[in-house]
């Protein structure tokens, strides 16, 4: 039976269970007139029956699906000849792919070996068996659990409280997903990184100056030794993020100061959303803009000035990234500036200070911690930004501080190492996870510091 039909049948069963539970509760007390003798309103009895009917069955179905593919393939392999079982995992996956293609009809049956055909037949058989077993198990579970509760319905059953407990548990479950996501990120990145560091020492990765992650297929090939020194990537990332901050911080800060302190209410209401449009534009659009508009423009300007500007210069990527971050800096700074109490400004005006003096000497220092927090968040965003650098920055690792040359970044390398089909245990792909770990840790610590600073600052004035 198809999973979707099964789910549908389960939902219909749950609806039936709702009716049945409700009817039974009413029947026990002699119809609607006696409803006041029930502990809970009749609907709750129905709901309790329906939940018991659907939830265990759906859980079992989910678990079944998580594991049945693996079990079926294991059984298929187990049924094949000893030679096949002796193959390495890579070759085995090729054989399995053949079998799956055969099942899907992607390759005609005449082309396959008899063994593959037999395996395919077995695969189909096991799959349908598994489907039938899942259906039988889930349906009987649904019926059994539903019937169990249905039989227990009595006027004194605390149906509402039971339903509410289930609801609470579900709510708690949903709110813990954030924790599981974090754990998932840490585990997935950490494990692959540990596997990487077994092949390449941590010190070489963190302090090496050479980055050329291609591993040779044969040992005697030219450039066969891949080098995994990530320093050029770190400097490239910092260079581009630095250029971005040089654009975003002054522009964003002054825009925020002007809009918060000088601009009239009407002007502010028009201009602020217009600037925030920049925050809503997808990063891939910025990447396009950097690679095909700003990059060539800079190169032409450089040529006319007699400067050699690489077509994928760090400057182009950094500039555009800076534009992207302007609204981020300006809206955070705006928040922080408007949170400074008016009394502080009034005090300064009372001493005869001009508006700009008040802003520079009173408002800005008071808002500084918050602004620093905002800038830290902006840096973390610049470091983690991917599409702009993938499209507009170079691929070659280049240890330089010259913004006119092409540099590569951590995120660019992650993308280039992982896009396309790849085997999962070569140092090349594992290196991407190690880079991901560095990225995650760097942004995490920046975020924690920034959030701490911002929170402490907010508490000061609120």
């Amino acid at each position, binding site marked *: 039976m198809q999973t979707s039909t099964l789910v549908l049948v389960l939902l219909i069963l749950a609806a039936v269970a709702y009716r049945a539970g409700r009817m039974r509760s009413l029947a026990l007390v002699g119809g609607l007139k006696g409803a006041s003798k029930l502990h809970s309103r009749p609907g709750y009895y129905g709901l309790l029956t329906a939940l018991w009917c659907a939830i265990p069955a759906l859980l079992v179905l989910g678990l079944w699906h998580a594991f049945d593919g693996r079990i079926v393939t294991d059984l298929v392999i187990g049924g094949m000849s000893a030679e096949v079982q002796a193959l390495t995992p890579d070759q085995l996956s090729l054989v399995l792919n053949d079998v799956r293609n055969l099942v899907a009809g992607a390759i005609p049956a005449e082309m396959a070996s008899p063994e593959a055909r037999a395996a395919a037949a077995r695969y189909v058989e096991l799959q349908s068996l598994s489907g039938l077993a899942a259906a039988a198990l889930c349906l009987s579970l649904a019926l059994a659990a539903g019937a169990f509760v249905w039989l227990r319905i009595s006027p004194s059953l605390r149906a509402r409280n039971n339903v509410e407990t289930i609801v609470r548990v579900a709510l708690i479950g949903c709110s813990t997903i954030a924790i599981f996501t974090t754990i998932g990120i840490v585990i997935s990145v950490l494990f692959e990184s540990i596997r990487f560091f077994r092949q390449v020492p941590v010190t070489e990765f963190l302090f090496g100056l050479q980055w050329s992650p291609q591993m040779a297929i044969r040992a005697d090939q030219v450039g066969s030794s891949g080098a995994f020194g990530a320093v050029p990537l770190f400097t490239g990332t910092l260079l581009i993020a630095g250029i971005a901050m040089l654009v975003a911080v002054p522009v964003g800060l002054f825009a925020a100061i002007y*809009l918060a302190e000088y601009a009239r209410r009407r002007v502010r209401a028009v201009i602020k959303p217009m600037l925030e449009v920049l925050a809503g534009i997808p*990063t891939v659009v910025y990447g396009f803009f950097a690679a095909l508009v700003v990059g060539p423009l800079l190169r032409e300007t450089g040529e006319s000035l007699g400067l050699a500007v690489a077509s994928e210069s760090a400057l182009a990527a950094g500039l555009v990234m800076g534009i992207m971050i302007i609204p981020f800096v300006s809206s955070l700074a705006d928040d922080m500036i408007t949170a400074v109490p008016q009394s502080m400004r009034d005090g300064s005006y009372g001493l005869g200070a*001009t508006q700009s003096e008040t802003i520079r000497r009173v408002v800005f220092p008071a808002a500084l911690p918050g602004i620093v927090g905002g800038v830290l968040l902006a840096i973390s965003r610049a470091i983690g930004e991917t599409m702009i650098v993938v499209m507009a920055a170079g691929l070659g690792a280049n240890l330089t501080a010259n913004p006119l040359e092409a540099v590569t970044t951590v995120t660019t390398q992650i993308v280039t190492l992982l*896009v396309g089909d790849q085997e999962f245990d070569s140092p090349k792909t594992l290196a991407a996870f190690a880079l991901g770990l560095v990225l995650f840790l760097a942004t995490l610590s920046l*975020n924690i510091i920034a959030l701490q600073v911002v929170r402490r600052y907010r508490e000061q004035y609120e």
Partner: protein
Amino acid sequence: MNDPALNPAAAENRAQRTRRLVEQSLRRRYRAERRFRAYGIMAVALGLCFVGFLFSSIISTGWTVFQQSYLRLDVSYAADVIDPDGSGDLETIGNADYSGLIKAAMRKQFPDVEGRGNLRDLYRLASDGGQFDLRERVLRDPDLVGKSETLWVLADDRVDLYMKGRIDRELGEDVRGLTDQELGWIDRLVADDRLEKRFNRSFFSNGDSREPEQAGVWGAVVGTFLTLALTLLLSFPIGVAAAVYLEEFAAKNRATDFIEVNINNLAAVPSIVFGLLGLAVFIQLFGLPRSAPLVGGLVLTLMTLPTIIIASRAALKGVPPSIREAALGMGASEVQTVMHHVLPLAMPGMLTGAIIGMARALGESAPLLMIGMVAFIVDIPHGFTDPATVLPVQVYLWADSPERAFLERTSGAILVLLGFLLIMNATAVILRQKFERRW
């Protein structure tokens, strides 16, 4: 001695001096004031310039994508080519050589062209894609076999670029990509009203293609729709449930603090890290298919959850406590209070948050690159496990293509993407204005 009461003259003197000093410095200070204000105006102007420059450069390269050059050809559906045995068998008709028909029509248009090389150049004025149109027409109406009709056939991308004025005919032959002879043919076609720009249907109905004139966004739009539908379906209920728990039920203790710290951090984790998670967990561990909207939706769900939770909590905070107290006072249980009273009142705010989260997910491409949604996919996806791509990734793919005609397609796809974003954000704003209640 400094006491002004004892020495009024000295005090007078001092006051005058101070006054003079202040007046002297006042000019400088006012100048500084004006300068400071000018910096602010410059920053705002610069920001607005960036917005203007960005949009004008994208619109100026992209707006022409809504039109495409078509050739008007007299195609004759020769029976001996399409259905030689006259059996009317749909399979035979489907396998016929339709590009030959277009070639024949081109030959008829230019009877004076001779020589294989010249003919090949001539044929290249029409796009490869035209044959599929013909095939579809004949399959839909097999009675056409043996007749002829005049119809508009897709032109080649170079012809299209020329028609849109993006190829300068003053340039040398090798630079502009069209020979003088080809330009001559184009001029004749234009003079005969047989070559013109019409509404670009194929851009909105085709999937991706290696040929710019045939490439369309429909495949990516469907992929985006599937991915986002799954994201919304998962992230909205889960996000609302998490927000309700944290805001309404959770006790203030370490566990809830930990959850909150987690949510705030996840909101700031780079999106590419979620891609790594998706690759390692969903694809490697669970064995879900690559390039599928299923995995894309799951990854984007994890990514947008923090946004939705934070927005939903803000919406719940906005419901005044008096509502809860009234419900509890009437004997409702805590769960009833939340489900029957607080949640409906907070719903507009939550929906606004969800739309904003969806708009972010719509523009996201980095994590989807990790899970293989960058494959070259021609077919329109039909389900959650079919290989698919999404609009932003399509933009990325086209931006990487060397053909000049793809530049226009890329900008066109960006315009479509921005159009969707505009609709979503406008909906959010309208929703907020219409339903937001101040208590």
